[in-house]
């Protein structure tokens, strides 16, 4: 789940209590469970919450470094349509300057999971991500003074449908995101805002799938619920004097999934000088609200489970 997403907990308290019906909820496609990833977007709608996502970014080109706390909550409106609200807080320390802190901006996302193929463990989703103007500290932290709309496509595919004679490949899954940033303002204080093409992938090897669906290799808790993964995410500017410039990170890490929550940790490796230098790290605590609150928060607002 992308870090900068926000929570509107107050709105969720009004959720109706719905009659229990068989439910699937978070990241399932057939027998494949997709954990919520830390860098890239999840290809499914869900009732989940990240609280918090802690990020220490690699140092920027000018030597400054940021530490962020992000909070996001996802809520299904119907079984296939969901929203995500996100908010971030950040501490910025530049060389020779006192540290500054504050909110980094509010964002929202509306998604429609239009495709799920259980036998082939495939899922796909379209959506619109919006980061909203003047919802963070614009001058101190560089939060946006303009709104950016980003139509997106997310997808996921597990390889459990491979033949039984390829048992070690069947735990593999790949998820991906494609999106296009459309800023509603082309320039602020002399800085141009290009359209960006964003693309990211998560390459996962599910030890849970290996142990419980392919071959009992004797993995005991907590190892039988771990997913080693590598996430990559890139953003390439398309115009306004920055065409072709790309920034991105590669993030190897691991996610442990329990019954009610998951914990994930990844290293952050910048792909080039424009992105930063040195290493960063991200740690996320993520809660499955549909499991914690199966008869209230954890059900869609409309359309049953």
């Amino acid at each position, binding site marked *: 789940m992308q870090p900068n997403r926000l929570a509107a907990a107050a709105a969720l308290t009004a959720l109706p209590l719905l009659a229990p019906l068989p439910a699937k909820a978070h990241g399932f496609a057939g027998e494949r469970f997709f954990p919520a990833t830390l860098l890239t977007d999840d290809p499914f709608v869900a009732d989940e919450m990240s609280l918090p996502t802690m990020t220490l970014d690699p140092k920027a080109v000018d030597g400054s470094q940021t530490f962020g706390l992000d909070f996001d909550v996802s809520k299904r409106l119907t079984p296939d349509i969901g929203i995500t609200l996100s908010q971030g807080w950040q501490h910025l320390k530049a060389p020779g300057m006192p540290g500054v802190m504050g909110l980094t901006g509010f964002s929202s996302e509306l998604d429609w999971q239009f495709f799920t193929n259980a036998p082939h463990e495939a899922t796909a989703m379209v959506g619109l991500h919006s980061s909203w103007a003047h919802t963070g500290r614009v001058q101190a932290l560089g939060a946006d003074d303009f709104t950016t709309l980003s139509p997106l496509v997310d997808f996921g595919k597990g390889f459990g449908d491979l033949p039984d004679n390829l048992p070690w490949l069947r735990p593999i899954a790949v998820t991906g995101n494609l999106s296009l940033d459309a800023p509603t303002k082309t320039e602020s204080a002399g800085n141009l805002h290009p359209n960006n093409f964003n693309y990211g992938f998560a390459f996962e090897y599910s030890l849970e799938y290996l142990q419980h669906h392919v071959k*009992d290799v004797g993995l005991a808790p907590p190892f039988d619920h771990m997913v080693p993964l590598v996430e990559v995410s890139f953003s390439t500017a398309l115009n306004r004097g920055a065409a072709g410039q790309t920034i991105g990170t590669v993030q190897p890490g691991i996610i442990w999934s329990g019954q009610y929550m998951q914990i994930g940790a990844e290293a952050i490796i910048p792909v080039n000088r424009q992105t930063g230098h040195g290493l960063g790290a991200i740690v996320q605590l993520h809660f499955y609200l549909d*499991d914690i609150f199966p008869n209230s928060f954890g059900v869609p607002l409309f359309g049953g489970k």
Partner: protein
Amino acid sequence: MTVKPLAILISLLATAIPGAAARAHAFLDHSLPPVGGTVATAPTEVLMFFTQPIEPAFSAATLSGADGQAIATQAAATDLQNPTELVLKLPPLTPGHYKVSWHVVSVDTHRTEGTFSFDIQP
């Protein structure tokens, strides 16, 4: 968000989680014969143990052979002494490759499904 409200929220959630005990998605924990295992003699039943209690009326399992054709069995049933256990009684089986397909609904109504194979030695 400052650190103090964050700590309070985490504390509230940590309080809420134990109250939801014995709920959530039911995952297969282990089975007999073991997932992907090979046994020397034909089993008379497949035992599936899940991480949560399951609803017998909405939980089932089927067996198929190496050719993918379904093999008739009795309906799978939960163990009355252990609501996390699903039992599939088997007909006499010959050596070969078999696949078990299961789906269960946990007591909080979450549905999960899965498959696994086992082999009987010649």
